[in-house]
């Protein structure tokens, strides 16, 4: 067994002879896509009871590597060993039979089926036939996860955070020995992440191996027994359990970041995201980080949400009498567990959904304009933007090139269309400029957007909503799936725009994110705004109280 480790770091841990055979081992895996070398001679092994964190910038090849392991893709070169035996994994079902369960970066549930039907679909090998048995298993696994799942809810109606829980349950359904989680925490609140960490610990005790992809370094440091960093398809370096023990957090962060971004990592030194995470780890108050924040005090209103309500249905808490005022140049955060009305509120503001009662009013200086009755595109023309957190479901048209997806909300407009005729040269040069500006990793501007890595797709969506003079932007999880560096760049952009007077409503499950960029933070729970907190010292505690208070109620 030879590890051709190109890394400059000492990674003795990986070379130690071990008595246990790895549950899975990848040797020399190479995968090419047209125009990209997604995986380049990758060696990787996990042992029972080990949690391996896979890190790397957007487009580094993490998801590709894991989808090879889970049978979704076949490698161009290299071998896979399961329990020491060389195996060809032809399809996901075979991977499941081998005990490899994967939770993908995006939902793979059938939206029209109920939760329980989705789960039973995954186990169609007649392992679990009757529904009552299935419900029991669901309860058992949900209990392990510390989550509540309605077995009869339609999967498509669930918030993405809840869908993720169902996905994890689905991956565990068949008695998995290796669990692969591709960015499982991107939709979870700090509490949810704690619970996931606990769950992973208990899985570990049961001897499961876990491969965990994340962009949040503190999670990697907290949950991982080993860390493997990919960069441009290659293993850039590894950190063994010993490394993780012997170095302190600052050193580790520095090490990982330099592995992730190579020479370019210098520019990241001391960025708020990293330091915030370190502080978070060591129990400091992260809210001290929001130094760039401004007070809304005397500025004018940009958007007013008045008494908006939406009747609850089986799968949604609805909205209850939401009153919010957003000032020009202000960033108003919305905290809360995913699925507590955030998407509904965003859709009501964007015009994708009609509220039962209430009004949405856009202000421009002295003039105010009620937009409640306007359609989606009219609101867009007035400068109202909405970044959806469903980049696959509604955010993009997977099969269409990046350029058209960038212009999805401006179809027919000059200079990209002239009298209805497409101006390909204009679209192309615009797309190229966006690819450049947002550092989108793609073989070319014509690449269908579905071929991009999750984070790169997110960059395209962000570019779409940030461009062309927005006035009020609703962001649902703006940095969802972005690597540390891009996350930082995006937060900077949001703040830059705020400085120019753009108002932003930022919904996020990451409290750190909200504390870093918001001026005020509203807390949503069960379709209500249960409180609005001025960001500053003590804000985190107060938000916590609001969230807990509601949960207890």
């Amino acid at each position, binding site marked *: 067994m030879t590890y051709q480790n190109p890394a400059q770091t000492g990674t003795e841990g990986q070379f130690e002879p071990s008595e246990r055979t790895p549950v899975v081992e990848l040797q020399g895996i190479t995968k090419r896509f047209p125009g990209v070398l997604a995986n380049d001679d990758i060696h990787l092994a996990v042992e029972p009871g080990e949690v391996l964190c896979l890190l790397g910038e957007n487009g580094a090849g993490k998801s*590709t590597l894991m*989808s090879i392991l889970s049978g979704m893709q076949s490698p161009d070169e290299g071998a896979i060993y399961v329990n020491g035996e060389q195996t060809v994994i032809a399809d996901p079902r075979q991977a499941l039979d081998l005990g490899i369960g994967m939770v993908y970066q995006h939902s793979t549930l059938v939206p029209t089926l109920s939760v329980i039907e989705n789960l039973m679909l995954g186990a169609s090998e007649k392992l679990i036939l009757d529904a009552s048995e299935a419900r029991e298993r669901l309860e058992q696994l949900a209990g392990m996860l510390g989550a509540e799942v309605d077995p009869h809810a339609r999967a498509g109606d669930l918030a993405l955070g809840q869908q993720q829980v169902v996905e994890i349950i689905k991956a565990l359904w068949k008695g998995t020995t290796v669990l692969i989680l591709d960015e499982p925490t991107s939709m979870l609140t700090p509490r949810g992440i704690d619970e996931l960490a606990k769950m992973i610990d208990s899985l570990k005790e049961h001897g499961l191996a876990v491969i965990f992809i994340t962009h949040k370094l503190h999670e990697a440091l907290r949950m991982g027994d080993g860390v493997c960093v990919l960069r441009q398809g290659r293993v850039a370096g590894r950190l063994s359990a010993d490394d993780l023990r012997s170095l302190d957090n600052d050193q580790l962060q520095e090490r990982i970041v330099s592995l992730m971004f190579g020479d370019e990592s210098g520019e990241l030194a001391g960025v708020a995201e990293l330091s915030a995470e370190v502080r978070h780890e060591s129990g400091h108050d992260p809210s001290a980080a929001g130094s760039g924040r401004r007070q809304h005090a005397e500025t004018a209103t940009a958007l007013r949400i008045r008494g908006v309500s939406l009747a609850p249905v089986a799968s949604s808490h609805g909205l209850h009498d939401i009153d919010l005022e957003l000032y020009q140049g202000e960033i108003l955060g919305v905290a809360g567990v995913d699925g507590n009305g955030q998407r509904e509120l965003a859709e009501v503001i964007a015009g994708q959904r009609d509220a039962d009662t209430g009004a949405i009013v856009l202000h421009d200086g002295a003039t105010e304009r009620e937009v409640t009755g306007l359609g989606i595109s009219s609101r867009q023309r007035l400068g109202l933007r909405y970044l959806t957190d*469903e980049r696959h479901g509604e*955010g993009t048209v997977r*099969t269409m090139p990046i*350029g*058209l997806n960038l212009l999805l909300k401006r179809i*027919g407009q000059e200079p990209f269309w002239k009298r209805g005729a497409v101006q*390909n040269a204009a679209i192309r040069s615009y797309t190229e400029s966006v690819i450049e500006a947002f550092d989108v990793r793609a073989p070319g501007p014509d*690449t269908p957007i579905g071929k991009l890595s999750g984070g790169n797709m997110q960059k395209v969506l962000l570019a779409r909503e940030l461009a062309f003079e927005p006035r009020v932007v609703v962001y649902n999880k703006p940095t969802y799936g972005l690597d540390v560096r891009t996350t930082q760049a995006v937060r900077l952009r949001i703040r830059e725009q705020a400085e120019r007077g753009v108002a932003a409503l930022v919904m996020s499950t990451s409290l750190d994110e909200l504390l870093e960029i918001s001026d005020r933070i509203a807390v949503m729970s069960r379709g209500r705004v249960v409180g609005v907190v001025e960001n500053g010292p003590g804000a985190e505690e107060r938000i916590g109280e609001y969230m807990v208070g509601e949960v207890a109620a």
Partner: protein
Amino acid sequence: MSDSPDNPSASEPDAGGSGPTQRTATIDRPEGGSAGPSRVRQLLATVTQSLTPMVLAVIAGGILLALMGRDPIEFYGTVVDRAIFSESGRQETIIRMAPLLLIAAGLIVAFRANIWNLGMDGQFLLAVAFTAGVAPMLMPTLPRWLVLTLVLMLGGIIGAAWTVIPALMKAYYGLNEIITTLMMTFIGVNVANVLVKGPFYEEDPGRAFPATPVIEVADRLPRLFDTSIHIGILIGLIGILVVHYLMTRTSIGLRLNILGASPRAAHHAGLGVAKLTLLTFLVSGFLIGLGGSVELLGVQGYMRADWDPALGLLVVPLVFLAKMNGWASIAFVALFAVLANGGELATRDAGLPNDFILFIVALILIFMTVTDYLAVRRGGKGNPWIARFLASVGLRREGRDAE
């Protein structure tokens, strides 16, 4: 480096090659194409994939002929001789293409938007009935060119009107249009008959069946040059090429393609899904109705009761094979017209019913589905439009690409 293999410029030889930038906005197929080693090879693969079912159907038809004691070589020889090598037969082949092209155009508009308008035959036949009924009324009072223009428009409008109910049901209540359009065809065919036997009926002791008045040959669609080919073929060609242009190069076509690829993305982008759905139905019905008018004004001259060529369902496999590409549709319609036209004589010579041609069409459909199924099973791409159709009717789950 990242050509999509089926972009219009790849699957059609002369779509007005405006350089490489053309590729930016290619929106030809629901599955995004991945880059290939060579465009030529991609093109060849696409052509092979599309032609295979037709070739297989012809071979299977030949085997069946042999089993029935006919000479397949002779049979197909007659088909080709008649439909291509004889002057009058060649003209007849071209004449037959006109309504088929317009139906194909109408289907492409709808199918690209993921709207399965299968009510072509009702839309077509009602347009025929109205054309046959109204044209003779207007002829005596108005100049010929004006009557023809008006009646062509009328045919289109009738075709469009017959989609309104399924369109509203789909747009506002989400009702599956496959069922509603098929139902509307059932009703439409009968209404057309009632019209022919009622308001549009003309007594003629020389005819054994109820029918509309006959439009004088001189009053029908003008002929091209010295041939018997009427200008319907031009209308058909223009129709399908305009549709092709619209669907691949304009903002409205892009909207329809987005609606087809992802209604949720269309809604999110503010495209006005309900109105777009209505528009799609209307345009589709208009083109198909226009096809009906062209056929009546160009060839039939009158409509007799119970006449129903049921062309619509014949065109469906053709546009699937053509992958909703206008140029490829012209080619497949031409192939089909050869088969249908030559087959008429060949079946007569062989002492077989004319329905034998329908049988071959059915074979095309079967082979199309089977080869596609096999291609997908072997891990290949298959025809993305078939996949989309099967997904629409719930027979296949649309698989997502792994991230």
